[in-house]
C-alpha cells in the first residue's frame, strides 16, 4: 500500500543507500570522544590556568634541589623569623629554616599525598561501586550501607579517628584520606553503572553472548571513565587539603618533614610577629587546590555531552 508505493518511488529515483545528509567523504577523520573532549578543554581558559598552576607546582616539586640553596631541615637559629629578603626569598620560620625551600619540598609531599590517596580511593571505590551497581541485590545493599555509614561522619573526623588508631605519621594520614574518599568514588561509579546497566547497548552486548566480565571491562567501564576523571581531579584538591588539616593537627607528617599544613600550625603563634611564615604555606595550599578545581570543572564541562552544543 503506502509503503509499497514509497518503496517503488525510491527505487525509481535510484537513491543511494546512504541516507541523510551526513558528510560522507572518505577523508573525514574519525573523531573519538576523547579527542573531542580535549578540544573542548583547550578552549576553556580557566582550565588552562589550572593546568599551568599544577604544572608549576609539579616542576617545583621535581626540581626542588636545583634552585634551593638550603636543605629543608637546616636551622639557622640566628635568622629566626627573618623577613623575606634576598637571602631568604620567602623569609625564615621560627627555627630559622628557609621557607622557600620548605615550600618547594612540601610540594613533593602534598602532590604525593594527593596522588596516592586519590589513586587508592579511585581503585577501591570504583571496584566496590561496580560490584554494587552491576550485581545489585544484597551485594549492593551491603556495600551501599557501608558507604552510607562512612559518609555519615564528617570526613576529617573519620580521618582523625583512623589516624588515632594507627598512630600519627604521613603514611597513615595518606591511608586515612584514601579510605575516607572511597565512598565518594564508590557512590559515583555505582550510580553510573546502574544507569548504564539499563542502556540498550549493554543489553546488546549481552545479546551478543558476552560474559559479565567483558561487559564490565569493555562497555561499562569506558563509559564511566569521564565522571571518574572529573571526580579524581576534584578529590586531588580535597585530599591535599585534608592532608594539610591532619598535618595542622599534628596527625600527619612529623617534623622535620616539610608539610604545608604542619608549617601553618607551627607558625600560627607568630602570626602577628611574622605573617610571612603563614602566608607562604597558606597560599600554596590554596593555589594547588584551586588549580585542581579549575581543571576538574573544565574537565567536567568538556567531557559531559550535555554541555556541548
Amino acid at each position, binding site marked *: 500500500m503506502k509503503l509499497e508505493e514509497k*518503496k517503488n518511488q*525510491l527505487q525509481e529515483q535510484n537513491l543511494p*543507500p546512504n541516507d541523510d545528509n*551526513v558528510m560522507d567523504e572518505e577523508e573525514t577523520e574519525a573523531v573519538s570522544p576523547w579527542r573531542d573532549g580535549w578540544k573542548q578543554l583547550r578552549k576553556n581558559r580557566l582550565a588552562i590556568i589550572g593546568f599551568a598552576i599544577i604544572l608549576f607546582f609539579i616542576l617545583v616539586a621535581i626540581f626542588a634541589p636545583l634552585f634551593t640553596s638550603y636543605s629543608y631541615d637546616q636551622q639557622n637559629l640566628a635568622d629566626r623569623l627573618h623577613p623575606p629578603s634576598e637571602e631568604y626569598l620567602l623569609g625564615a620560620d621560627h627555627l630559622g629554616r628557609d621557607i622557600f625551600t620548605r615550600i618547594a619540598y612540601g610540594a613533593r609531599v602534598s602532590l604525593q599525598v594527593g596522588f596516592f590517596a586519590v589513586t587508592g580511593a579511585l581503585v577501591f571505590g570504583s571496584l566496590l561501586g561496580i560490584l554494587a551497581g552491576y550485581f545489585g541485590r544484597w551485594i549492593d545493599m551491603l556495600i551501599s550501607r557501608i558507604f552510607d555509614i562512612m559518609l555519615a561522619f564528617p570526613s576529617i573526623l573519620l580521618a582523625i579517628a583512623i589516624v588515632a588508631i594507627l598512630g600519627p605519621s604521613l603514611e597513615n594520614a595518606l591511608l586515612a584520606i584514601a579510605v575516607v574518599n572511597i565512598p565518594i568514588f564508590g557512590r559515583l561509579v555505582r550510580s553510573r553503572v546502574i544507569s548504564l546497566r539499563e542502556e*540498550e*547497548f549493554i543489553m546488546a552486548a549481552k545479546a*551478543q553472548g558476552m560474559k559479565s566480565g567483558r561487559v564490565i571491562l569493555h562497555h561499562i567501564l569506558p563509559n564511566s571513565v569521564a565522571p571518574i576523571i572529573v571526580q579524581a581531579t576534584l578529590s586531588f584538591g580535597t585530599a591535599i587539603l585534608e592532608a594539610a588539616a591532619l598535618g595542622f593537627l599534628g596527625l600527619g607528617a612529623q617534623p622535620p618533614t616539610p608539610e604545608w599544613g604542619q608549617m601553618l600550625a607551627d607558625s600560627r603563634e607568630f602570626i602577628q610577629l611574622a605573617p610571612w611564615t603563614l602566608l607562604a604555606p597558606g597560599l600554596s595550599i590554596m593555589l594547588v587546590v584551586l588549580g585542581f578545581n579549575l581543571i576538574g570543572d573544565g574537565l567536567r564541562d568538556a567531557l559531559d555531552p550535555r554541555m556541548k552544543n
Partner: protein
Amino acid sequence: MSTPLLEVNGLKKYFPIRSGVFGRKTGEVKAVDDVSFSVMPGEILGIVGESGCGKSTTGKSILRLIEPTDGEVKFEDRNILELPKGEMRKLRRDMQIIFQDPYASLNPRHTVEKIISEPLLVHGMKNSKERKERVRELLEVVGLNGYHATRYPHQFSGGQRQRIGIARALANNPKLIICDEPVSALDVSVQAQILNLMEELREQFHLTYIFIAHDLSVVKHISDRVGVMYLGRMVELTTKEKLYEDPKHPYTKALLSAVPEPDPDIKKERIILKGDVPNPQNPPTGCAFHTRCPLAMDICKEIRPEFAPVEDHHFVACHLYNDKQ
C-alpha cells in the same frame, strides 16, 4: 509442513512491584501473559500492538535478555529457557536482535570496527585480520563502506546507525533475528530503505525474522504472518492477507480501522474505542478487552477466551468465535 524454527508456549513475564522499606512485593505487572506462537524457518512474523502491550518484552524474553517468569521457548527443538548460562551464550550466535533506538544501542565509545567485530571475537574468531575483513564485508552488505569502520557512532545518521546495528546482528550468520521496532525511530524515507535492506538480507542469508512494530503499514509490508497483541496477550494471529482483509477479533478490527486512508474521498467506517488501555497491574477479568469491546458479552467478563484456531492458520482469542466451533 516443516518443523518450526522457534516455538513459544505460554510465555509469561510478570514484573514485580516492590514498595516499602523492605521491598515487599505488593503487586505485579503482567507484561506478557501466556503468549504462544511458532515461527517457521524463513518466514517473517510480525507482532503489532499499542505501546505497553508487551511486544518488546516478548521479544526480549525469547532471547532471555529479560528472564521470563514462565513458559517454554523452543529453538530448534531445544527449550532454551532451561539452558545453563554458557550454553545460552553459545546459542546467541544463532539468535540475534536489532534494537529500536539506533542512538542507544551502539556503544558511543567504540568504533564501528569494534562494535561489529566484538560478537565475532566472543564467538571464537580470534584472528584479528580475519575479523577486520569480515567487518568490511558486513559493512558493504548493509550498504555502508569499508572505510566507515574507523569511525564512531556519533558520526553517523540514524539510518546509518541502524545499518551498523544490522551488521552487528548479522556478524555470526544467525538463523533468527528479532527486530524490535527497528524502524520506529527513523524518518519515513529512511524507514523504507531499511525495510528493503532487511528484505534483501533475508533472501541473501536465509534469515527468519520476528518483526515487532506498532506501525500497521510497516508490518503489512514486511510480514508473512501477523500477530496482534493487547495488554500482554496475543489476541489474533494469522497470515497477513487474512488479517488485513478479514480481521476477526474486535480489537484487530478497531486497530485496522484507525489506519489512515490516503484518499480523502473514501469514506471509511471507523471504530472508536471507549476509554483507555486498562492498567496491566490490574487487568480486567476474563477477556482483557471486554471493558472496551463494542461486542462484549456476559461471558467475556468471567472466562478468559482461549487462543484457538477458527480457520486454517487463523488463531483468535475471542468468545464470539469460540462458540461457533
